[in-house]
């Protein structure tokens, strides 16, 4: 095993090699070995690797820390029960109704490609959980935080046939490097709403990687709000494995000075008549950088697929940056697929109108920006919707 690793080692930087060496010292299970091999193919991703142009993890981790690690500024999303992971792994856990085991068990037949940081999280996970959400389970809250060092967590969450459930993830690292991977498995007719809140310190490198597998008729609805981090990547790889499943992948980002976010989704349509709706909206101030990479893949036999992707961004100030890369890959001939992307500034005429009625400029800008991104958050169910809109409003008004 060591020899096969050293074959690819010349490509790797010191940090990547260090991470691999750490795994060598562990007693690896077959799935960890598989994950390690996948990670070793690239090591820590950098800007010259396809799909990582706007999240150069290698560069971000090679910068010496300026000692600015801070506690995450935000409060985590609430749930009826939940698990919290900090620097030492699982720090608090209470799952009232659902069954769970610590660590992820070895029974995954199909393995979605979750990218280098997803593999890394699996290979080096110090902690994790395998959770099956029971009927009537309260919303599950998952909180990930920490201020220094490396933190890797791997979770699997199953939603059994016909069960409706909610999960709220909060990724709130102040500093250090973390990658959290969650594998969602929805059985036939199951329904899950996943809300994700990401807010990290200016020096933190934070990845939230999810794979989502939808059985026939399953419904998955995701709503995220990202306030960015030094480097923040939200990666979702979703597969419609059967017929008639539905996915909604909405969310918004708000980025200030020194904050970045890279929203990456890949959706594979393999069954007949699946639908995907994606609406991502963002607003960026000077010194912030947002990126959206969306890819819809429709297999040859996935007829009647209905997939729409939209990304709209506001550049709030000079010196703000937004990049968008929407892609449709369609191999079936009877489908409806579309994407749209816009980038613009706040409407000056609207700002003047609001000021004429007495709103101070800053308040007019905040209100207009909030109304711009709100439509990407409003499809969330009551609870997460108010929480995410509240966080957005706090960010905009500086309260």
């Amino acid at each position: 095993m060591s020899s096969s690793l050293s074959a690819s080692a010349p490509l790797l930087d010191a940090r990547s090699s260090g991470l691999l060496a750490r795994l060598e010292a562990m007693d690896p299970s077959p799935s960890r070995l598989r994950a390690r091999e996948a990670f070793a193919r690239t090591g820590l991703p950098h800007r010259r690797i396809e799909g990582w142009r706007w999240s150069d993890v290698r560069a971000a981790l090679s910068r010496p820390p300026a000692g600015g690690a801070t506690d995450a500024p935000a409060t985590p999303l609430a749930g009826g029960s939940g698990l919290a992971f900090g620097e030492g792994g699982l720090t608090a856990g209470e799952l009232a109704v659902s069954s769970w085991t610590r660590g992820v068990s070895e029974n995954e037949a199909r393995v979605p490609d979750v990218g280098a940081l997803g593999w890394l999280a699996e290979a080096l996970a110090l902690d994790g959980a395998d959770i099956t959400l029971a009927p009537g389970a309260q919303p599950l809250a998952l909180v990930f935080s920490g201020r220094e060092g490396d933190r890797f967590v791997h979770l699997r969450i199953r939603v059994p046939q016909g069960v409706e459930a909610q999960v709220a993830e909060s990724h709130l690292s102040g500093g250090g490097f973390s990658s959290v991977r969650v594998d969602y498995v929805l059985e036939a007719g199951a329904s899950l709403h996943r809300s994700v809140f990401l807010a990290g310190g200016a020096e933190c490198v934070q990845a939230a990687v999810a794979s989502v597998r939808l059985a026939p008729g399953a419904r998955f609805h995701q709503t995220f709000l990202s306030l960015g981090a030094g480097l923040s990547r939200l990666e979702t790889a979703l597969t419609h494995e059967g017929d008639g499943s539905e996915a909604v992948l909405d969310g918004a980002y708000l980025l200030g000075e020194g904050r970045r976010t890279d929203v990456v989704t890949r959706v594979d349509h393999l069954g007949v008549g699946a639908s995907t709706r994606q609406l991502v909206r963002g607003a960026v101030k000077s010194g912030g950088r947002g990126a959206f990479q969306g890819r819809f893949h429709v297999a040859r036999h996935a007829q009647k697929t209905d997939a729409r992707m939209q990304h709209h961004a506001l550049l709030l100030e000079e010196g703000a940056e937004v990049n968008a890369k929407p892609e449709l890959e369609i191999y079936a001939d009877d489908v409806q697929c579309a994407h749209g992307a816009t980038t613009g500034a706040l409407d000056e005429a609207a700002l003047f109108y609001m000021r004429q009625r007495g709103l101070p400029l800053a308040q007019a800008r905040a209100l207009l920006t909030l109304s711009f991104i709100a439509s990407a958050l409003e499809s969330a169910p009551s609870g997460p919707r108010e929480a995410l809109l509240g966080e957005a409003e706090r960010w905009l008004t500086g309260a």
Partner: protein
Amino acid sequence: MLELKDLRARLSLEGAPDRDILNGVTLTVPAGEVHAIMGPNGSGKSTLSYLLAGRPGYEATSGSAHFLGEDLLALEPEARAAKGVFLSFQYPVEIPGVPVMTFVRAAMNAQRTSRGEAEISAPDFLKKSRAIAERLRMDPDMLKRPLNVGFSGGEKKRLEIYQMLMLEPRLMILDETDSGLDIDALRIVSEGVNALRSPDRAMLVITHYQRLLDHIRPDRVHVLSAGRIIASGGPELALRLESEGYDALIAGAG
């Protein structure tokens, strides 16, 4: 109350050459009076309203504009609003995602805060809003919809007057408020406007046609042409314009 002296202005917008748009406007509107500004298209009527309200890009190059003795041109648009300047827009702007009531309440409270007054309570606001909507015969559901989004031209104008009645300004500038209104709506809107006439308020009614002035009777009428006032008179001047047209008057002034 409003005093304009030899006001000259230039429009400088990004991507367009600067343009002189007012060429020396002198005008006094005493408290309690309604003055009409009439003139052909392109005479500078809307420019005057934007300049007084403080729209970015509209710059006074010389002369002065005082409101209640204060230099209006030195104030930000929101400060002018808090002093009581209200512009009813010729083309009200659509603001997606912001419901009418949310917006008007935020505006009212921002003005009050700026004046050092307490914010209005939610029940008081609702009560006032309901009474005004009823007076303007507006569908209450309209007030829950995003501001101006998908509203007809007439609905937008009615909503401007709703906001004016809610905010109770001291200087009202009505820019082509009659456009887009049918006869019944014109009467309802005019009644709303007339309800605000009072000894401590003034009004500038900008219009192309005389018909609005049948409903909102002006004390004085001024004719604006090529950025200057070329004639002033009583209400009879508007009637004369209606029968003789602008051309005769402009030719006479030239």
